[in-house]
């Protein structure tokens, strides 16, 4: 699409050269496509193809062994009568609603600390980013499980202060706070982006505000937040989408069961258990498409409401 409009616009400038130029341009386009080809092939074969086939499978009863049987919207209809599905939606929404803002707050707070000029700031920035480098890995989920187990470090520290709640891992009421802490701890990626955003805020704005007698809180709400709003928007969007897709840590901490008592039965974990545990690929595909649609709708809502609170430089608002 872009390649048709570009020659048309440029062609106006010099009629005599048109033939030669367009020839050259076509050759360029071909080269461009040739370079694109590996990526394009990968996209079609590894992403678009499976997506389309999963859309088809979501309307079938497919157990991996026998040919899929077309059942229309049955999978989608059955989802809403499935207690464990509803449980997985509740668990995931709780995680997204509480985990994402907490993580962003932590990231912003630490980014602001690291934005001030201090000796050894480079070291601190790297040090704070380390948890995010290893955070998504399998090993850290295993460490987390040990830390929050019975008589683990967390239990011991809390007991020292007289809060004896025992291990978090086996307690259905404590697994969600534990999972949220795990994601908050991986604040590094949004923190780096916040840090970059903070560097873009012109220092003269703060100087002017100080002259007018604005305090710390006023400067934060009237300058930092509005100037940072595009970055906040970006981080909020990415982290929300990311949070919906939590899988590995839940899988490891619950031994792939979603337990205790269904408290870590996240959406993707239930999808996986349905597909590969119960061999109900059609059902699992329907779940995958429903998640895609839900994330799509939430993204759309974010974009629609963003006009009211996201300020881009040069805008009239």
């Amino acid at each position, binding site marked *: 699409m872009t390649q048709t409009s570009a020659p048309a616009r440029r062609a106006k400038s010099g009629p005599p050269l048109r033939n030669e130029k367009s020839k050259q341009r076509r050759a360029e386009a*071909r080269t461009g*496509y*040739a370079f694109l*080809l590996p990526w394009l092939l990968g996209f079609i074969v590894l992403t678009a193809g499976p997506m389309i086939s999963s859309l088809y499978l979501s309307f079938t*009863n497919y*157990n*991996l*062994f*026998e040919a899929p049987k077309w059942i229309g919207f049955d999978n989608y209809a059955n989802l809403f009568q499935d*207690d464990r599905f509803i449980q997985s939606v509740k668990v995931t929404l709780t995680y997204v609603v509480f985990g994402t803002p907490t993580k962003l707050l932590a990231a912003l707070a630490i980014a602001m600390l690291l934005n001030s000029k201090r000796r050894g700031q480079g070291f601190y920035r790297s040090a704070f980013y380390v948890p995010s480098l290893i955070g998504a890995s399998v090993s850290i989920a295993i460490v987390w499980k040990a830390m929050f*187990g*019975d008589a683990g470090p967390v239990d011991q520290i809390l007991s020292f202060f007289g809060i004896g709640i*025992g*291990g978090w*891992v*086996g*307690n*259905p009421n404590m697994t969600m706070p534990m999972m949220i802490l795990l994601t908050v701890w991986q604040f590094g990626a949004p923190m780096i982006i916040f840090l970059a955003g903070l560097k873009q805020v012109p220092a003269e704005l703060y100087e002017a505000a100080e002259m007018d007698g604005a305090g710390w809180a006023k400067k934060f709400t009237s300058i930092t937040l509005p100037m940072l709003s595009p970055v906040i928007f970006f981080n909020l969007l990415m982290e929300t989408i990311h949070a919906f897709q939590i899988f590995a840590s839940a899988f490891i901490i619950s*031994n*792939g*069961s979603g*337990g*205790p*008592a*269904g408290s870590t039965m996240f959406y993707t974990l239930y999808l996986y258990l349905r597909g*590969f*545990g*119960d*061999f*109900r690929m059609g059902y699992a595909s329907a779940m995958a498409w429903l998640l895609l649609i839900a994330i799509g709708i939430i993204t759309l809502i974010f974009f629609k409401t963003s006009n009211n609170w996201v300020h881009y430089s040069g805008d009239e608002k």
Partner: protein
Amino acid sequence: MISRRNFITTIATGVAATALLSACGKSGSEAGGGTAENPTVVNYTWWGNDDRAERTNKAIALFNEKNPTIKVVGTFSDWAGYWQKRATEAAGGGLPDVMQWDLSYLRDYAQRNQLLDLSEAGIDLSGFEKTLLPSGKVNDKQFGIPTSTNAFAVYYDPAKLKEIGVAEPTGKWTYAEYQQFLTDAGTKSNGKYYGSTDFTGIWWQFNIWLRQNKITDFTPEGKLGFAKADLAKWWNLNADLRGTPAIIPSDKITQLLPKSPFGSNKTVSEPTWDNFMAGYIGDSGVAELKMVAVPSDDPENLGLFLKPSMLMVASAKTKNKDASTKFIDFMVNSPEVGEIFKTSRGVPASKQQREGTTFEGVDAQVVAYEESIADYLSDAPEPPIVGFGTLESEFLRIQEELNYGKVTVDQAVDQWFTSAEDVIKQNA
């Protein structure tokens, strides 16, 4: 110069040629009977821990040495990953030639034409009990050959019982006596030990209880043979014990995974299969464990049975049928294989293998237990219905919610029946 069309054609030709070449290569190496220089390759896969891996590799090496024209190549994984891999392989048409198998999944794969009928494959079945073979049969075809048998038992640790002053059980007991034993163990140890895990959460113990009450688990038509009231009665059996020291709470169990509470020295007893003995001793480090029969309110009917602890099966699509069945025959019948595995797979099912193996120590205990209950055994179970794996894990999961106090017994029973009926409908 490469034009777009040329480029794509070139790539496509290249891809097609590679596929063609690899296809040729495959058929080239697999065709023919196999010679010492170019042996027939048989892929074998099993689940298990390092101990079983070591023993299995020994058995494979022995087979390869005796059969120079065949080369068995083995791979293994843990239990949970094992079935996910088989499902994806079956979907792609690439199951390994020979596989270690479990009763729970036999019907799923056999009915879907994934397994080879071994009835006429030349495997010597003369040494197998006639009551055991039906558990490898689906629709009258022998798809699985049992390697060994196991029976259900109640384990206990005599040293811990002595420590807390509770008498050892005799194995001739009612459910009330069993519960009293668990309560005594839990209260007399002052919080050091619990009695056991909640035995009503174990599908197979429920199955035994059904047999004791002359109720079938599944009808021949693949429907449930018991009613909601039966399951409610079973789960209510321990209603008063949950939350007391008799039964270890679920949150403790969760944190001990992948070890069991019994293997972690948190309980004094555990009901499970008799071939887990060596594993428990290894996990807990205790000197000795003992086993007795499960409780029954009818002393003449213990509901016990010998189950194939595992089976050997071959893929329906194997290209090396003769070599594969030869390997299965070796694994189930050879006394030398018996010497390698002892009772770690269960007590050898074939008479030749069993009598050719010497059992000592722990292994002798397992064999003695199965002999001690021989008079009470009923028929081995037939392969359960398609989707049984799901039902079994749902049983455990819902019972866990019950233990956490998240649901009442009636709600738990409703939940399990809903998912069971769903599974049966799906696979009908």
